[in-house]
């Protein structure tokens, strides 16, 4: 059974198997409820989201709940591990390089955005979060969608589903393997080739996450600017077209693929190799590398 829906700005689907209608409906309802809850909380398109509150209350510390605290701890750790490349405060910068602008931002705009970017401009001491500069934009992209996939998968398991996959815009979390124990075969979208799957892989466990610039890159005068921006320089990073990673959870897979994208092709490849998780990288020329079983 397959349910299609849309959330967090992307097309999503819930695939379930080997269960009766009632269970499937329950699982679908639980999934919708969970993504809605997380979207309300962490969307930066909603003025009433917790995220908006966090970034707008300048100077005053806000005590956050456990779930947000855990996400912030995780983001802090990723910031540390990536030497500052992964930065949830870089929202203003990524918006500057958004494809929908149809233009390259000026140096003045970049400098202005840099002045309100930086993990050093917030204070995170669990459970208190404090923004010290006005105008900052927090961006939990790279975290929330993958986290949501894991949560939805668990919600489906709690509803009684034993076989299925949650697909939130390409970030997948496994609910359980096929009834006969075989893993699900899932497709990784081809960069820059609409609708075509570039690789079909087995998902035996956990989650699959893909970071890629193919859908959201800014193209001006034939030149492609990735939406993965270096929060230290303000400019996009030349990197892979896409990186897909399989891990125990979609969250870890997402963190790994994001960190790989942020590291650029050379360092990203060796980091992924050292990490030891199955992965597939496709660089700007379509060259593939990685050890995912296709």
């Amino acid at each position: 059974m397959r349910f299609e829906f849309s959330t967090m700005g992307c097309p999503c689907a819930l695939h379930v198997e080997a269960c009766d209608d009632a269970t499937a409906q329950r699982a679908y309802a639980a999934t919708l409820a969970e993504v809605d809850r997380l979207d309300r909380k962490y969307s930066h398109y909603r003025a009433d989201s917790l995220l908006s509150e966090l970034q707008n209350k300048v100077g005053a510390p806000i005590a956050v709940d456990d779930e947000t605290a855990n996400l912030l701890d995780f983001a802090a750790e990723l910031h540390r591990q990536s030497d500052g490349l992964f930065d949830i405060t870089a929202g203003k910068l990524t918006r500057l390089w958004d494809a929908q602008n149809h233009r390259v931002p000026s140096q003045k705009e970049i400098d202005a955005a840099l002045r309100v970017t930086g993990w050093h401009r917030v204070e995170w001491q669990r459970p208190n979060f404090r923004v010290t500069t006005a105008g900052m934009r927090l961006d939990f992209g790279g975290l929330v969608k993958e986290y949501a996939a894991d949560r939805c998968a668990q919600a489906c398991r709690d509803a009684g589903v034993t076989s299925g996959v949650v697909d939130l815009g390409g970030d997948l979390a496994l609910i359980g393997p096929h009834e006969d124990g075989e893993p699900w075969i899932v497709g990784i979208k081809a960069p820059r080739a609409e609708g075509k799957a570039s690789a079909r892989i087995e998902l035996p466990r956990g989650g699959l996450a893909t970071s890629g610039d193919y859908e959201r890159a800014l193209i001006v005068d034939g030149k492609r600017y990735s939406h993965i921006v270096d929060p230290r320089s303000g400019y996009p990073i030349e990197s892979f077209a896409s990186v897909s990673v399989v891990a125990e959870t979609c969250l870890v897979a997402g963190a790994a693929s994001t960190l790989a994208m942020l590291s650029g092709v050379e360092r990203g490849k060796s980091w992924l190799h050292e990490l030891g998780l199955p992965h597939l990288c496709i660089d700007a020329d379509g060259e593939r590398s990685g050890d995912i079983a296709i």
Partner: protein
Amino acid sequence: MRRDLRIFAVLSIGLLMAGCATTPVQPWERGRLAGWDMRWDSDPMQAAANEHAHFSKEGTSGEIGAAGGGCGCN
């Protein structure tokens, strides 16, 4: 030997109290501790071989764990 045992008892109780008194390290903070280089033995097979060489050539031995089996190593 009795004096050594008393010192040991005092230090162990100190360790126990210190362990109860300090702020615990949260699970997400333990990442570094799980690294290969922070294990008690990062290579148990080799650690056993190393201990065996020293045990065969010295008059005293002892590790954290039970002594296990002996050998005629000379």
